[in-house]
């Protein structure tokens, strides 16, 4: 099962890919996608490493943690999208304004 | 036998990637729709083969859920396609 290490390493790659997009991309929908990619990468790392158990049966605890994490991520995405739509209907913008409210 | 299944998975996976390429390229919305449909079907097939490889019958449940869910995404896609296709999408015929 050691080839599965590839997938855990993919998780690391996804996390940083998402981080890059979160910083660089301006459109908020894209930032929301980026956050989802970041969390997917972390989940992959968390559950991927759970597959290195000697017996073949993966560790259930990280799997349960990832399940929790996926649900939290959906909740956060829904709230972020609703905020984006509210922001859009209030200001017409889909990017963050850098004027610090002054 | 195990390796036969893995070869099958690899083959299906490559088909999947080819399908993805079609989703991205188009050129017509119909191409994309069909490719998307096929995408779900192939993924379900991979799950079924994986169920054999890893001796995990529960993976068939996943394939079932995926097959049901494919309807949603396709529905959502069609809905969106009818509301408005983004302008300048490379489908200018």
């Amino acid at each position, binding site marked *: 099962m050691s080839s599965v290490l590839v997938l855990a390493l993919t998780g690391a790659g996804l996390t940083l890919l998402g981080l890059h997009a979160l910083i660089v991309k301006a459109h908020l929908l894209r930032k929301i996608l980026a956050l989802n990619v970041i969390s997917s990468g972390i989940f992959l790392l968390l559950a991927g490493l759970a597959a290195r158990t000697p017996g073949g049966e993966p560790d259930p605890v990280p799997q349960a943690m990832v399940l929790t994490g996926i649900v939290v991520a959906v909740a956060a995405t829904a709230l972020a999208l609703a905020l984006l739509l509210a922001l859009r209907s209030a200001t017409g913008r889909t990017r963050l304004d850098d004027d610090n409210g002054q | 036998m195990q390796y036969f299944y893995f070869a099958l998975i690899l083959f299906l996976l490559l088909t999947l990637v080819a399908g993805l390429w079609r989703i991205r390229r188009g050129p017509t919305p119909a191409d994309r729709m069909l490719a998307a449909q096929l995408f779900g079907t192939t993924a379900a097939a991979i799950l079924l083969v994986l169920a054999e490889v890893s001796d995990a019958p529960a993976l068939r449940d996943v394939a079932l859920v995926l097959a049901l869910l494919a309807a949603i995404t396709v529905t959502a*896609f069609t809905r969106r396609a009818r509301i408005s296709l983004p302008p300048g999408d490379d489908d200018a015929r």
Partner: protein
Amino acid sequence: MAWLTGLPLAVDLVLGATLLWLAWRALSSPDLFQAVALFIAFGVILGLVWARLDAIDIALAEIPLGAGVTGALLLAALSQLQPAEVDARAAPSATEANEHQAGQPGQTAETADADEAQHKPAVFRALLAAVMGLLLFAALFSLGLVTWQLWEPSSGLTQQVNTHLPESGVEHPVTAVLLNFRGYDTLLEIAVLLLALIGVWSLATASNLGDTTPEPVLAALSRLLAPLMILVAAYLVWVGAHAPGGAFQAGSVLGAAGVLLRLSGWRLPAGAAGWPLRLVLALGVAVFAFIGLAVIGLGEPLLGYPTAWAKHAILVIELAATLSIGAILASLFIGGRP
């Protein structure tokens, strides 16, 4: 036939590369609709990866949640943004120009957007990008190295879970962790979902989705599929006690069924849209908390079900949670308050 032994590795390599490619395209494709479509495909491939990792419970949740509900949410949001909403397509529009009047001087790389950087000198931008790229590569390298170092056989908590499995009331380890050993997390996680819904409702972004009349094909399809999905959800709750499945997987499928019904134009009857709906939404947290607290009166610790009852307690909690999760996910999709 030595090359055959490389096949599993090849499968994993293709899966990993596809994931990375999809994520990269979803995060950089100029067309947002395409980005979302690729993101949904990303969710499906991720589901395959979970299957490959023997994480069937996660695969069962990822496909309806990550690909299904999140995908539908993204598509719905996209359809409410104007059709012309295309990221980084043409020259900066008028609104964009307005946005960039007031950049804060002295901001660090953490806040710097690519667009925001437009009015900074080109050299500075290139320098910023180089520094950021370097930092990201260093981070990737260290994270990869740490993962590599961690990769040696370790059973984690597997043995502990298996030892206590008979006392948990269920036979499937992941369900035992979720509903019993770490039930406190799960209770709060349902609260997170409910919280997101309250937040969405407080924003009162009334969705115009589903207000159009449904096409006949769609209506027929959903009439066929929705009952089937509800059946599958019921099966997943039941099977969760001894095999992959359970409240979250079932709730996600239920939520997806709700999304489908909504997409085909179905509405909650007016009489059920008020407090009856709210009751269903709150049921999961309420029942879980009630049972978890009631056991204190029996001299048990918080959320400590007596072994004799654990099976029934978990079943009741799972049923309530499934209903709530399904209702919350469907309501999140609808967006505006009913």
